[in-house]
């Protein structure tokens, strides 16, 4: 975890969310425990637990008493929906700010996106 990137529990939560979004942590499968996360990331177990608890509160993980935490059914769809909602603010805004600074018009930007898509 990056100690220069704000609260660690949020990074823990974001990393698990990423794994769910990219499919490496499948729905219904067991999430890593707070002790496993603590050892792997070299962080305080309470911090790891806080990250997991946030995901439980968000409905991304469900707690099974005595067993552990599992990825909720529908968690991936829920996360995708939320991230699409945040996309404009997190990615389009900085892109447009920089484009404006450099005098790149919306039309030129659209052409760049087309080029980029065609090259792939």
């Amino acid at each position, binding site marked *: *975890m990056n*100690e*220069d*990137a*704000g*609260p*660690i*529990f949020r990074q823990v939560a974001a990393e698990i969310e990423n794994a769910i979004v990219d499919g490496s942590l499948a729905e219904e499968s067991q999430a890593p425990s707070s*002790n496993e996360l*603590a*050892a792997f*990331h*070299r*962080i*305080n*177990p*309470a*911090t790891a637990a*806080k990250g997991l*608890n*946030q995901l439980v*509160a968000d409905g991304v993980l469900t707690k099974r008493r005595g067993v552990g935490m599992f990825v909720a059914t529908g968690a991936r769809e829920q996360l995708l929906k939320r991230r699409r909602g945040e996309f404009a603010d997190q990615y389009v805004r900085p892109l447009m700010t920089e484009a404006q600074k450099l005098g790149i018009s919306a039309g030129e930007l659209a052409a760049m996106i087309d080029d980029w898509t065609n090259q792939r």
Partner: protein
Amino acid sequence: MTAPPTPAVATLRDVTMRFREHTALEGVSTAFEQNTITGLLGRNGAGKTTLMQLLSGHRVPTAGRVEVLGAGPYENDRVLRHICFIKEGQRYPDHFRVRDALAAAAMVFPGWDGDLAADLVADFDLPAKRPVNKLSRGMNSMVGIVMGLASRAPLTLFDEPYLGLDAVARQMFYDRLLADYAEHPRTIVLSTHLIEEIASLLERVLLIDRGRVLLDADAESLRDSAVTVTGPAETVQTFARQHDLLHTETLGGSSRAVVRISGATDRRAAAAQGLAVEPTNLQQLVVAMTLQTPAARGQHHPTGPAELEEVSS
């Protein structure tokens, strides 16, 4: 979502400690909750060692009250065997070999784990038959670390336990501490100057400066409580005036400031004004807060306290 407060293992209530004309701690009140790792931070001579000596019953406060596990620790055997204090540069009886020192510790601490101690001795490659006082400074520190971890004491205090240890050995210490703590949670207080190295291990931070508490908070909220903003000097100054400015630097027309904020709204406000907003890590925050004190501004080298603590320990 907030967890209910856990009972405190140790508390200081309005504690003052004076040595002749020097005041090492003044009006300190704090609590060390059960099963937490607290980083005890502060400059040389801030009072960190004195605070640990009070917690471990090595001293009686001039005023105020120290309680550990519900009672005063001073000359209280019932309490003392549940406290393990690993001092900086610990001395041992002359004839003591490493194994004797560990055997003695095994008799003192009810929760002693001999297997863990043996594991750690092997991991650190410690010569069990060598007299402790003939060890290098780093090896002496390792003996302290083995004792501190294997004691499994409900209140374990490490006072700068890494002196003389290289980066690899320090990493081993942090990893073993974390692994054993995860399996056997207890209350750990760790004083250190290597803030960046241990920041992610901490749940609580207690920052003292010149005998007073500057900061007593949970580490994760602290990471959220301040930001570094960079941008045109005027914009930075305007933003800083509206918040609690901790530290600022200017180069040409642009400035950088460490500012305490109250939440995401403040962060967005800074971004909306065109400032680059970055999180502040614990070390930056601790340095900025310590530099902000009038004492630090007036004079850079604390006099007296460091020396006195040395003499009196």
